[in-house]
């Protein structure tokens, strides 16, 4: 099996699907003739497939996402890249009010087989308007599917599933993951939508995460292992549909759950998870479900502030200790000694900002 990057894996998926199905075409800003997107996933595809299959657009997200919706209703399979997730806000009407609604409001007579790829990034001093993770907004909307692959393997397999799917799919990519390497089969394979993965098994605590937060969760699990604690990590891969079966099976085994997300937890993905876990695993839990996410502030610029605002490794580690303490597995006070928020409510993180940026 070949070791390739997350970026290469996504590109393979696009190239294979475009070769397999002439209805698949790409659209986005600077994805073709010049490839100045942060992802650079489409590099070389314009030269291979030409300007109609790889269509460069002006800065016009509402326009070209709408164009994608229309093209999809007539049977094409658009794969749209938005430079980063933040820029889709100007096109939300087309996503929520149109793409997500069409099948239902036209009684099943029309459908929108479209993929919108959204790179998500935090922690590179990108500041308030470019550091957001509002996948919960999409995952809240019936009619949409929301995927968030963490590994190169899943990036390729899930993107192929998304392109072949008959419904609009929001596809979240980790901007910090593009250069990550991993094993990816060269064969034509897909990863099913709605199936979580368990990249690390453990018996004392379940850490549930998606996207870049999975990588942090895995690092925290490693650290906990050094302290004699066995943490299991569930990588959701798919937010809507959500694989609660895998999550609940894990929590029933470990009796403790910590849910992590990069974005704001309030009304977020972890809120949904916590609610579902307490319902599915009420009698199995040895401690209340804990949640960990970004600070409830617009992302500040300065490194010290940004580092404190991130759902950083240290914050996740302390949240994990908190769950273990509350369950009685660790002595009372250990978690707090380990680092509760300081008096003014700002978390003093020990993680250097650049390490966080990845």
């Amino acid at each position, binding site marked *: 099996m070949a070791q390739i990057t997350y970026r290469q894996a996504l590109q393979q998926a696009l190239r294979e699907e475009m070769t397999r199905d002439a209805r698949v075409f790409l659209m986005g800003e600077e994805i073709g003739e010049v490839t100045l997107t942060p992802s650079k996933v489409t590099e070389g595809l314009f030269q291979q497939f030409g300007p109609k299959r790889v269509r460069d657009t002006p800065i016009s997200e509402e*326009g070209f996402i709408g164009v994608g919706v229309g093209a999809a209703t007539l049977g094409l399979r658009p794969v749209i890249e938005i430079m980063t997730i933040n820029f889709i806000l100007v096109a939300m009407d087309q996503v929520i009010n149109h793409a997500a609604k069409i099948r239902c409001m036209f009684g099943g007579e*029309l459908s929108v087989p479209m993929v919108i790829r959204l790179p998500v990034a935090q922690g590179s001093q990108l500041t308030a308007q470019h550091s957001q993770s509002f996948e919960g907004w999409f995952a809240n909307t019936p009619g949409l599917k929301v995927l968030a692959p963490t590994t190169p393997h899943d990036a390729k397999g899930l993107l192929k599933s998304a392109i072949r799917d008959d419904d609009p799919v929001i596809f979240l990519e980790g901007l910090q993951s593009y250069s990550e390497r991993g094993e990816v089969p060269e064969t034509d394979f897909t990863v099913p939508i709605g199936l979580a993965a368990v990249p690390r098994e453990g018996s004392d605590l379940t850490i549930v995460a998606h996207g870049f937060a999975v990588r942090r969760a895995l690092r925290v699990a490693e650290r906990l292992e050094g302290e004699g604690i066995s943490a299991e990590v569930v990588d959701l891969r798919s937010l809507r549909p959500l694989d609660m079966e895998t999550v609940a099976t894990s929590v029933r085994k470990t009796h403790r759950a910590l849910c992590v997300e990069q974005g704001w937890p309030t009304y977020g993905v972890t809120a949904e998870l916590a609610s579902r876990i307490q319902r599915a695993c009420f009698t199995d839990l040895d401690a209340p479900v804990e949640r960990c996410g970004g600070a409830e502030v617009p992302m500040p610029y300065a490194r010290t502030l940004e580092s404190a605002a991130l759902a950083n490794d240290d914050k996740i580690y302390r949240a994990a200790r908190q769950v273990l303490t509350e369950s009685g597995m660790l002595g009372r006070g250990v978690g707090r000694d380990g680092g509760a928020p300081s008096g003014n409510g700002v978390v003093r993180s020990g993680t250097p900002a650049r390490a966080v940026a990845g």
Partner: protein
Amino acid sequence: MSTVSPTERRLETNLSDDELLRLHRLMLLIRRFEERAEEQYTRDRIGGYLHLNIGEEATVVGTSTAIQPDDYVFCSYRDHGVALAMGASTQQVMAELFGKETGVAHGRGGSMHLLDVKRHFLGGWGIVGGQIPIAVGAALALDNLEKPGAVLCLFGDGAVATGAFHEALNLAGLWHLPCVFVITNNGYGMGTSVERSSAEPELYKRAAAYKMPGERVDGQDVLAVREATQRLLRLARDERQPSVLECLTYRYRGHSPIDPGKGYRTPEEIEEWRGRDPITLFAQRLQERGVLPDNGGQGIVEEVDREVQEAIDFALQSPDPDPSALYHHIYGEAAVEQFARMAPGAPFGERSISPGVVTQDTAAPDTPDEATLN
């Protein structure tokens, strides 16, 4: 409202008598359908919003009947007339307004989301301007698939102020897509006049910004509208040149049944427009040419009355959608398996408190304040 050119055209056309009568009949059908729909609304058989085409029949029929079989049509939520002119079943359109399973959207869309995919009418869209980029996407699909047709996209004067209009027309112009953008300018976006919403009230002039031809036509003259639309569709199909057509027309009614349509325009203005009623004008011209049969075409009026009455009867007798079908048409078939691990036994991850039981709201209906029902 800009004044309509007083020039009345003579009936110079190559259309056969049958074709002329077909246009006349369609306008009558729309007028009658809308009048009866309004009446059914007041009888509480139709809910939600109801946007009527009364007064705009020449623009609706002139544009919708100008297409070729390979073309596609999109329009706004004021869509009953377009659906009928496109040949959708009068019965199924009325049934949709009644929210019945037999409706064109199986009772899921209602008044604003009519469609007839077989006849290439792709909706009825509820957000002002939202359908314009989607129509451009349909044109792009035709282009990519090297299909022969063009797209006709209708919207109101209010949509011209949206960002979606600008972005969509820019993309269509930039990419040379086969699309004709029709502004049904009835003078008002809800209660706001064109003069109060557009820095350039001659809306067709906006076409220049997208390197497109822009034209203005008397929207009360069905043949003038039809001729212009046909010509611009040919331009789109044959030369990949998109364009803008502004049709000057008027809605006699308010924006919707709750809007009496009087607070923002004078009775004199409404009367003036009624003096140029598109159906009366066309009937006069047909009469002059001797095309109208017996008694000024009274037979056609009666035929149309019957057709609409039959549609109402059909809608009344049609079944409501079964509540157990609530989760139909939300996702494609694959979703059933994809969502199976989210909340087993319940659709799309929903927590089902009583599995298999679909509840109905048995409380007295909470009617929103009438003023909010625009």
